[in-house]
């Protein structure tokens, strides 16, 4: 079971990360998209998942990655991101809902560039409970 006292808690904002042209083009090509400067709609997960690593590594939180399934994903894009942009990410434990002994964990990550909030990403993970 997850530690529900973490709901509402944010991790420290990451160091700035550059959306490199190389990473954008590799991500785009892996999906069969043109590898130009446009950042693919789902690219941001390659930044938000590492940004949440401190939560996975935190034994007090109790997240066992081997019991996790990805259940929902949502992106809101406030403006278009281009390769070369530098962003910083702030993940927050938005909610933990317990359903039949399993947890649904939603992490909301704010993605900010030099002008402010550029995108928001929500990832909901199904975390299987202990077998009865």
């Amino acid at each position, binding site marked *: 079971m997850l530690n529900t006292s973490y709901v509402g808690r944010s991790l420290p904002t990451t160091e700035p990360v550059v959306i490199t042209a190389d990473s954008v083009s590799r991500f785009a090509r892996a*999906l069969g998209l043109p590898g130009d400067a446009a950042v693919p*709609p789902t690219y941001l997960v390659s930044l938000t998942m590492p940004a949440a690593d401190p939560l996975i590594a935190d034994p007090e939180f109790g997240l066992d990655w081997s019991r996790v399934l*990805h259940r929902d*994903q*949502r*992106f809101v894009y406030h403006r278009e991101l281009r390769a070369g942009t530098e962003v910083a990410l702030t993940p927050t434990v938005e909610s933990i809902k317990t359903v039949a002994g399993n947890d649904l964990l939603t992490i909301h990550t704010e993605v900010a560039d030099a002008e402010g909030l550029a995108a928001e990403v929500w990832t909901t993970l199904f975390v299987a409970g202990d077998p009865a």
Partner: protein
Amino acid sequence: MTFADLAPGDAVFTAAFPVSREHLAAYADASGDHNPIHLDEAAAKAAGLPDVIAHGMFTMGLVSRAVLEWIDGAGIDARLTEFSARFAKPVVVPAETGAIVEVEAKVRKADDDSVELALTAYSGGEKVLVPSRATLTRS
């Protein structure tokens, strides 16, 4: 075409993409998600799965590609402002045959400035991504 031409319930496009183990390996490298259930049959079976499964985010990426190709082909000057999906069932990718992901899009809401699509992805006769929504806003 303008968004005003679209009405709720209109079917706007379908698309189909083959998925192979090589696609999953390339996506693992590009995304940094190296979970072995997407790469290795033994690891997938140990996790209780019938075979290797695609990353949910790979399938969602294919859905985004279908949307972007539709915008491009229809000559619509719009950008994606919101995109969501629920991973309802896994996309099973056998080594020999691979899999096919089919995407179907209908209009959910439309006005002069934006359209919201209701998207469904199918594979192996199952709905694998549902519901999925994409909002396009005129540039």
